[in-house]
């Protein structure tokens, strides 16, 4: 009772502070919205949301070139880590908030957003803008950033997956890794190269939960073992003999000859292990080839070899396919200016500019045929450029599996519900990798969850 006045005073102080904070926040928001339109006085400001990867940092640093060529257009960047970019941009385009004119999106998002009319087709722009050379785009990459045959995202870079390995360790263990290995060979090689006493694991694979983490690698293994996510009637196939065998293989390989504490490593962890020489092999994205070579210890750098994504019993080409594309939001007030920026940053000229200004091994790869014809680029990336190109061209996102499927996407299922299903399954798989449950248990739970999810969403009748 007696603490009444005291408490009121304290409460008042808290209220006042909160209010002040709110006012402050309010005024900041006001400022930022003021900046946005920018049509007054002939100058146009376009807001661009980007993933914070090294290639985009280069683009940011070269923006003066664009502003010189396009007087009157100012570009304002919002750079976010990949994980934060997705929620931030999705919220913006889905609610038509209009914060961004240009948004960077993964190939998983492009068709979904296109279908929802959150982004506008680029077909007309691309056809009219002959200098942009639409026909120069790599076909499979162009396909995954299109919807119903219309281009919605201008590919900034594209990638597939392949195998990284250490030639010296292979030689020491007496194994040869062919350019087109099978998973069986890789498992045998991993067993031989596994050297726990010296702190080197046979192979590094993604174990961290997340639909874009362990599930990306695992799904390519499932495909090439003859498994699939759903049959043509959308009945989940996670407990099918093929899928079970593939997951069991992945988990066993990881538990027996993979990196220690595997359930905590995503591509970040494996990239570190490969560069530091604590793993003999690594199966991951082609775009990391440049990163490994850049940060590797000298011993690793000299002995790094590459091979196509390993194949399984079904003999399906198993490399995945991914692209970061730039699209124009349907809420953009300046689509023409937005296209000018997109055209600049994804053009063959830009790739040359980036190569000259910041080094040929750090240009955005995998988007255009012409990139792979640049002599400077070929020289700088001789070890992996051709293999990257082959891997991308080998991937088939419309028919990624042995048996027919009702979805597209190699390492993901092109439906909005996949993030939720995939996150659940990836957690169960991580459980199997860490040994807290068996593969059968993990897949049984996953099957039930997926069945429920596609029923609720109305795919499965």
């Amino acid at each position: 009772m007696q603490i009444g006045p005291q408490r009121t005073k304290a409460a008042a102080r808290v209220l006042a502070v909160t209010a002040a904070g709110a006012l402050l926040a309010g005024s900041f928001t006001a400022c930022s919205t003021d900046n946005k339109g920018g049509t007054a006085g002939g100058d146009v400001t376009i807001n661009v949301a980007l993933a914070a990867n090294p290639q985009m940092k280069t683009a940011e640093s070269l923006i003066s070139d664009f502003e010189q060529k396009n007087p009157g257009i100012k570009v304002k960047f919002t750079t976010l880590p990949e994980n934060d970019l997705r929620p931030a941009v999705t919220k913006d385009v889905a609610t038509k908030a209009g914060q961004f004119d240009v948004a960077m999106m993964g190939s998983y998002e492009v068709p979904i957003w296109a279908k929802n009319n959150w982004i506008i087709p680029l077909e007309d722009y691309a056809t009219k803008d002959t200098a942009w050379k639409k026909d120069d785009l790599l076909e499979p990459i162009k396909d995954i950033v299109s919807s119903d045959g219309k281009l919605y995202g201008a590919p900034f870079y594209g990638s597939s997956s392949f195998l990284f390995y250490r030639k010296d360790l292979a030689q020491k263990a007496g194994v040869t890794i062919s350019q087109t290995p099978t998973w069986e060979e890789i498992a045998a090689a991993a067993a031989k190269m596994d050297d726990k006493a010296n702190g080197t694991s046979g192979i590094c694979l993604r174990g961290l939960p997340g639909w874009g983490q362990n599930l990306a690698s695992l799904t390519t293994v499932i495909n090439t073992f003859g498994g699939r996510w759903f049959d043509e009637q959308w009945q989940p196939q996670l407990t099918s003999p093929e899928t079970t065998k593939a997951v069991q293989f992945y988990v066993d390989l990881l538990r027996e000859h993979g990196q220690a504490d595997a359930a905590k490593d995503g591509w970040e962890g494996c990239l570190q292990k490969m560069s530091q020489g604590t793993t003999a092999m690594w199966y991951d994205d082609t775009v990391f080839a440049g990163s490994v070579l850049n940060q590797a210890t000298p011993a690793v750098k000299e002995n790094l070899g590459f091979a196509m994504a390993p194949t399984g019993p079904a003999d399906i080409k198993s490399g995945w396919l991914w692209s970061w594309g730039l699209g124009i939001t349907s809420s953009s007030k300046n689509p023409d200016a937005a296209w000018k920026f997109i055209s600049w940053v994804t053009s063959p000229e830009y790739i040359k500019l980036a190569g000259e200004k910041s080094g040929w091994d750090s240009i955005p790869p995998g988007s255009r045929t012409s990139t792979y014809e640049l002599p400077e680029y070929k020289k700088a990336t001789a070890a992996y450029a051709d293999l990257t190109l082959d891997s991308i061209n080998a991937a088939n996102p419309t028919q990624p599996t042995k048996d027919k499927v009702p979805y597209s996407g190699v390492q993901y299922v092109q439906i909005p519900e996949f993030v939720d299903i995939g996150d659940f399954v990836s957690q169960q798989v991580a459980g199997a990798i860490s040994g807290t449950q068996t593969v059968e248990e993990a897949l049984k739970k996953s099957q039930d969850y997926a069945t429920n999810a596609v029923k609720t969403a109305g795919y499965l009748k």
Partner: protein
Amino acid sequence: MAKTITAPRPPALVRELTRAERWKIRGPLLPALIFTILLTQLPFLLTLIYSFQSWSLLSNKPAQFNGGANYLTTVQDEIFWRSIGNTGVMTGVSTVACIVIGLLLALLLNHTFPGRGIARTLAITPFFVMPVAVTLFWRSAMFDPGFGLLGWFSRLVGLPAISWLSEYPMAALIILLTWRFTPFAMLILIAGLQSAPQEQLEAARVDGAGPLRQFRFILIPHLRPYIELAALLLAMNLIQTFGEIALLTAGGPAFGTTNITYYIYLKGFNGFDFGTASALGIAALLITIALVLPALRLLSGIFQKEGRR
């Protein structure tokens, strides 16, 4: 603190205020009050509305009321209950560990010894390092079985390195949280120790009480409100742990370290199922209130007891 609480009411406030006078006092507070309501109650109300809708952002279907379907999904969701359990274990164990270790450190640092200032600063430091930096540091430099410190120690004594984040993810998370929040408990408890009743302690010493007895019968009763305050503040902080989980284990493996905050994040901002995420939030709020109310009542009981003393 005790003095201000027990001070008699100023006579001016006892007199009945007229309506105009009351509004004169309230008036300046109103903007702040309105802002608080706008900022806290309005979002809550919206969450409540969303929780009764089927609204998935990615499906681009307009939000529709679906009765209590989201709540039905929530209570039938095994992972929801698991994440509630995880939240309880994570918060409970870390809080107790922080208090116990914080008390030990506070007792040590309350003595005078050369270099005490430096020791105190070092002991407090973990609390002021950014959580992201702390987590990344522990993830690679401590827990990693290959080049982490813990793995090195276990190899030193001839044991195999432990795969902390795969095999004991919850223990690893609790160790990290305890390391980070112990200084906070220690700060509060040091303050408590510094206001310890010296005359009583001296009297006890004269009567022949050893350090243990002094601790048990004088310090602990004296520290009780401090311990309870520390526990409440710690629990409030720990219950909303997010960054550590996202960076250390991504909630895994098999949802082994997914707490309710992280699970809502997964549903809401990864899967964009706002309806279910809102229902999860409301359900979690109800459960938290049910659990926390008794604790708060206990605490306010302490304040009143303190007042009487």
